[in-house]
């Protein structure tokens, strides 16, 4: 195809100018694709951290706007806790899903002779509920009253292993626990964050802290489609007259978080898009220069029988070549850019080579080519519609 050949040769003839214009496209594609990759990687990273709690409804005592004022809490209770009676009601309306009551506090603890005290969160759970909520990295679920589980970060930070002993309370006044298992890393969680905590039996928690009411109830919903139904059922049952509990559907919350991430990604990608628009203007500029320089040539072509659309395509090919070359180079560099940004900001590149990240490169490359083509349309149209007589006279 002779017009394609002419377009290629014209680019070669003005190599520096064409390279500079192409550089703009490369930068634009890298900006768009890298931002897209980063945004998607962030969403995936957060999603990974939260995925273990995406199947829960969390019931907590209502705070704020309460007719009983601060501390009014659950029916008849003066503290912000959920009573056994309330828990049973929640359990009944949530059935057949599992409702797990959670006790929570924090206390000093000593991990060995000569070691400094540390302060960590302590969760109290019924031993039967633990397997429904937590997975173990090593060891066993504690059945005995003096056994406990520890979070993976807690274990790592304090060099705790299965069999280690932990004295809880000031001078160990609450008792000593033996570590029976280490919990898998859970990351951020809406229900309980165990990574830097210890988990004890409810019985031990009751005896150590003299507490019978719960801090929250986690309902693990088997069928995710039932999440809204379970949430509504609990709200209807518990908040008949006054709002006494807050009920959170974790999936809904995650959706909100992901939507926010999505918006942030769109925003930063749009900023990348501005650089592409600037690159497009530079393509428009060099295409206009190319048309101006070749007016006489266009006149000759038209006079010896080149149709308007053939002249138009000759210039569009030029824009297309710049767009394809610039975008493909930009696509390859985006992979490098995405790798670098992911490494720096997320400390991992495992989210780079997944389809939802790589598709951003496809978007960037496509956008680059389309922008070049659009920016080539006006110069090409102008060239095609030059009056052949005027064009032939042009010096």
């Amino acid at each position, binding site marked *: 195809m*002779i017009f394609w*050949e*002419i377009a290629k*040769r*014209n680019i070669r*003839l003005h190599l520096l100018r064409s390279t500079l214009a192409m550089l703009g496209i490369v930068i634009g594609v890298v900006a768009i694709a890298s931002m897209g990759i980063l945004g998607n990687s962030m969403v995936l990273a957060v999603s990974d951290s939260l995925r273990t709690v995406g199947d829960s409804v969390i019931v907590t005592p209502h705070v704020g706007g309460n007719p009983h004022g601060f501390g009014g809490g659950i029916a008849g209770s003066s503290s912000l806790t959920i009573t056994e009676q309330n828990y049973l009601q929640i359990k009944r309306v949530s059935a057949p899903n599992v409702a797990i009551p959670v006790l929570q506090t924090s206390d000093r603890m000593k991990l060995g002779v000569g070691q400094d005290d540390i302060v960590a969160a302590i969760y109290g759970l019924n031993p039967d509920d633990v397997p429904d909520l937590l997975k173990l990295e090593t060891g066993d679920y504690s059945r005995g009253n003096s056994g406990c589980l520890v979070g993976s970060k807690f274990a790592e930070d304090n060099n705790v292993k299965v069999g280690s002993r932990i004295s809880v309370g000031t001078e160990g006044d609450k008792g000593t626990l033996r570590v029976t298992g280490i919990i898998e890393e859970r990351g951020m969680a809406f229900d309980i964050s165990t990574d830097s905590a210890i988990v004890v039996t409810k019985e031990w928690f009751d005896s150590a802290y003299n507490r019978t009411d719960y801090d929250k109830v986690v309902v693990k919903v088997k069928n995710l489609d039932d999440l809204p139904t379970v949430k509504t059922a609990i709200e209807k049952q518990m908040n008949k007259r006054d709002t006494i509990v807050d009920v959170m559907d974790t999936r809904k919350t995650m959706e909100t978080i992901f939507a926010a991430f999505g918006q942030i990604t769109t925003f930063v990608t749009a900023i990348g898009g501005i650089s592409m628009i600037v690159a497009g203007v530079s393509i428009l500029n060099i295409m206009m220069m190319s048309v101006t320089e070749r007016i*006489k*040539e266009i006149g*000759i*072509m*038209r*006079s*010896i*029988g*080149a*149709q*308007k659309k*053939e002249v138009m395509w000759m210039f569009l090919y030029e824009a297309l070549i710049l767009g394809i070359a610039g975008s493909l180079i930009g696509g390859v560099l985006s992979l490098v850019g995405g790798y670098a940004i992911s490494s720096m900001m997320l400390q991992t590149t495992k989210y780079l080579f997944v389809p939802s990240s790589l598709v951003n490169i496809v978007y960037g490359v496509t956008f680059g080519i389309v922008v070049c083509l659009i920016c080539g349309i006006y110069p090409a149209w102008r060239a095609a519609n030059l009056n*052949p*007589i005027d064009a*032939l006279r042009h010096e």
Partner: protein
Amino acid sequence: MDDRPVMMFRDVVKVYPLPAGDVTALDHVSFEVERGEFISVMGPSGSGKSTLLNLMGCLDTPTSGDIYISGTRTGDMSDRDLTSLRRDRIGFIFQVFNLFPLLNTLENVTFPMMLKSKQVIDPEKGRSVLRAVQLDDELFTHTPMELSGGQQQRVAIARALINDPDILLCDEPTGNLDSKTGAGIMELMAELNHNGTTIIMVTHDPNNAKYSKRTIRIADGRIVT
């Protein structure tokens, strides 16, 4: 063989509307060109030669009157059809050669063939036409910048001939050449005409006009002889 005139002007008027007032460049011009003729168009500057050439080459349309190319009336044709007519029936030779700098000799010559066929063409015809205009084979891959003026004009003539046009329109074909090279080009044109090519040549040079069989003289937009 088609015995209709290859070109016929009937009462053609061309008026350019200008802010200072209309300018009549051609005023009721009529003439016919028979197949195989070699015609010179002569006249002083501003006489209407360029306007006549543009109309003959279907690059412009008349204000009134009719133009026929090989019996086809051009007045009602679309831009697309006029372009196809130029490509298939008319060969252009310009004063300044007007070759495409990005294409080599052979590509320049076969360019109109590619426009016509829209497909990959056999370059052999291009080579044979280049040989017919007495260009050495070794120059076929040279770019226009690497050719002398005379060689460039021979390439331009080969390009004009490649689609076997009915008419060769020449605008001062030796205007940019020295007298010896110019004479060589005129000899070539005479030979082409001798072999049946119809040639219409706009020129200032009476020496060139001697090669033609008929001269149309134009003054103030009218044909005087």
